């Protein structure tokens, strides 16, 4: 099976949120609690000795997605062809009923719920529709810093010198997230 995943260049990210906004525009996600792509600021030190990096992160379409195992409605699937993890919203029983088990199981907060009682899970689908048309995901094409890449993870590993970890991101061997980094450690 081919596994698609992300490459993220943490040393380049300027925290501009263009990926996150382009994602909301493309996928029609309103402003609010739902963020398929999240841009986190990580600041360390005391004035004037400061270091700061950003971590832009969506869903890592893990090899062993913990969200799938905990979902009581079997609403989350992993595609055979490309390893993309998708949610079937018709099957999802919603935040209130199951207590967001998938979100609790995910080490990186990929499953997202709107601020509504009946909210169903939604998350990054790696723009599979764009990939199928030979286009890059919208975040990749949006990034003014060319800091994000998406493709078969093995190919990304050949293309880039990479690390499994980044500042603000801890690798989990058991889950095996499909993301690699050019990391910028600041500790």
């Amino acid at each position, binding site marked *: 099976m081919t596994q698609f995943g992300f490459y993220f260049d943490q040393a380049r990210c300027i925290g*501009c949120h263009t990926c996150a906004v382009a994602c909301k525009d493309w996928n029609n996600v309103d402003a609010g609690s739902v963020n398929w792509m999240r841009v986190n600021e990580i600041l360390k030190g005391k004035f004037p000795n400061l270091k700061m990096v950003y971590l832009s992160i969506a869903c890592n379409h893990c090899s062993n997605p913990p969200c799938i195992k905990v979902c009581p409605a079997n609403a989350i699937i992993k595609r055979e062809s490309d390893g993309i993890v998708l949610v079937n919203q018709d099957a999802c029983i919603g935040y209130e009923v199951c207590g967001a088990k998938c979100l609790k199981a995910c080490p990186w907060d990929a499953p997202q719920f709107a601020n509504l009682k009946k909210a169903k899970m939604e998350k990054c689908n790696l723009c599979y529709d764009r990939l199928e048309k030979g286009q890059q995901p919208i975040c990749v*094409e949006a990034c003014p810093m060319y800091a994000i890449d998406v493709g078969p993870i093995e190919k990304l590993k050949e293309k880039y010198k990479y690390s499994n970890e980044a500042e603000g991101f801890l690798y989990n061997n058991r889950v095996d997230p499909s993301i690699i980094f050019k990391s910028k450690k600041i500790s």
Partner: protein
Amino acid sequence: MNDLGEDEELNGIKIIKTGCCHDCGGRCVLRAHVKDGKIIRFETDNDEEPQLRACMRGRAYRQRVYSPERLQYPLRRIGQRGEGLFKRISWDEALDEVAKNLKEMKEQYGNSAILFVAGAGNQGMLHGPVPAGLMLNQFGGYTRMWGAPSYEGALFASMATYGTIMTGNAREDLLNTKLLIMWGWNPANTIWDPGTNLMLAKVKEKGIKVVVIDPIFTDSAAVFADQWIPIRPGTDTAMLLAMGYVIISEDLHNKEFISKYTIGFEKYKSYILGEGDGIPKTPEWAEKICLVPAEIISNLARDYASIKPAALVAGWGPARAAYGEIYSRAANILCVITGNIGLNGGYASGFMRAYYSRERVTSYKKKDNFIEKPKKPRPQDNPVDFEAPPRKDSLFKLMGGTNPANTRIHYNDYYNAILLGKKGGYPADLKMAYIVASNRLNQYGNINKGIKALKTLDFIVVQDQFMTPTAKFADIILPVNTFMERNDIAVPWLGSPYYIYLNKAIDSLYESKSDLEIARELSKKLGIDPGILNLEEDQILRILSSPRKDIKSYNKMKKDGYYKIKIDEPFVAFREQIEDPEHNPFPTLSGKIEIFSEHIAEKENPLMPPIPKYMTHEEHYDSPKAKKYPLQLITPHNKRRTHSSLQMVPWLKEIEHHAVWINITDASKRKIENGDMVDIFNDRGRIRIPAKVTERIMPGVICIYQGEWYKPNKKGIDIGGCANTLTQDGNSPGGAFPLNSNLVEVKLFSKNTVGVSK
């Protein structure tokens, strides 16, 4: 809908090639996906490199076009000015009323009583204030402003030093430098042309040392810098002079360059060494002023003078301050005495418009270093300005730069002009304002004085897309469409070789009209011939873009939505002047780089020294006022807006909550914790917003990002948190806007109201 640009048709979706064209550091490509006449999403440039990728401001544009807050119909004021009570009227009624007032003002007081506020909210060649300006020229003219808040200090310094605003090297050339100093320059947030940040990342990846000097630990400092040097606001000149002291006293200056290409070095040296005032401008002297350790100043000076080539990019922010033009002069001169001019990897700090054809299509010819005017006003000339002699403090003997007509009023000084008029020494008694694409009240210094001034006018018309704090003062509001609803051409903001053609993506929403349509219809009511405005948009755009000889194919530009100009090697400002000085003098009066400016000396204005001198002022940290208001307020640009445009966009609003940045030391002294609601105040006004208690700003300094909308409560406290409620009006003699020079105090108002990230 346009035939061109619809090169893809899928599921009834048309892709229209357009762009983003507000007054930011961008001008970027957008592709609007339009279905059933509605924009459903955007893509950006995915064609040939270099791509002109839009930032989040452009990507969020759908929420601006379809904002429920858009102005939909013409409105007439029914409440008090500023109250925001309006009544819907027809276009016919609205334009009749505007025309009637224009005619009455002209008849009763003359054209100079009409103040035309031509804002920067739209940066297309055709729309925004352009049509209204051409119309008002035909009507006999108007009083206009001079000065731009972003850059007037940098512009003046650039003209004074090099005689031109075309300074700096192309972005690509930064890869040739060995040391990059980013002084008060934060392109990670302000963009400075698409591609600049990517280039800076490559500079960093190449291992080139980058130093950032800024009171804030900016995103640029965090991402690009090897070293961040926090500096007290308004003291940049002192540090630059101290660097000059180290360079000269350690004999590191480039003597050959100085003797061959410059005049006035001895006078600069004499001041630096303290020969006149007895104060050598040593790093120890500067340390007390700037709070930068002397050793850091010395080391940076030595590095800058000895690592060759080195690029000092002096940003505009520190020049957006009292005597900002002097800071910018001091920076330019440091580039000069180290000989980092006209060569790859160097950088001539200044206005930094490396590639740009605006100056080459300047309307006046130069003769014997004086501007030769046409015999009578052309359609683009304002008759009120036309015969006017130059303003005393302007660099009127030089071609380019700011219009020096003395009929003009400085943009940050026109509240006084309205209130005092000719009796107060201003060139006109202003009676009405015609405001286009400008959130004037919000975006210039001293809002509370502005409110008093605007209330005294007989008539105000505002042409805008939203009910801005400025629009609330209008008698008549004319709703304008957005650049998604019309054709236009965007010129790159700074120095990049490209143009963007904005193909109309959708029809005008509601009853809104384009600025062009409004000027055409109003011209009829005024009984004047608006000239080219009667032509179709596309025909006018062909005429307006025709002087730009680098556009080889208008049709290709329109079809592709952009026109990228191939340049063989990165542009280097002043290469010709340095390589062949005999045939290529600098465009200054002396033909050389002017470390000492005779043209400035002629003014005999002690606040405008012909060589850069460090001066304090009454809103500086060491003034008596600082006892009452001990914190320095700076008001930079943030990452989620373009000035005050895009304020209403939810996707952008959620990215960074509006808050005052305050260092933990200053906060704890005042018992303020992160997220607490605080009052920030001085004699000019009071703001109430949450505090962001952070290490990212130096102690003694607070930051309120400019552009948030003014919103007074019943007591007049600005709970919107517009920085200009606290900033100064007025200007420095060279034109710098003192918007980063303000003393304030902060007090706790109420505990922990909202979540604010540290």
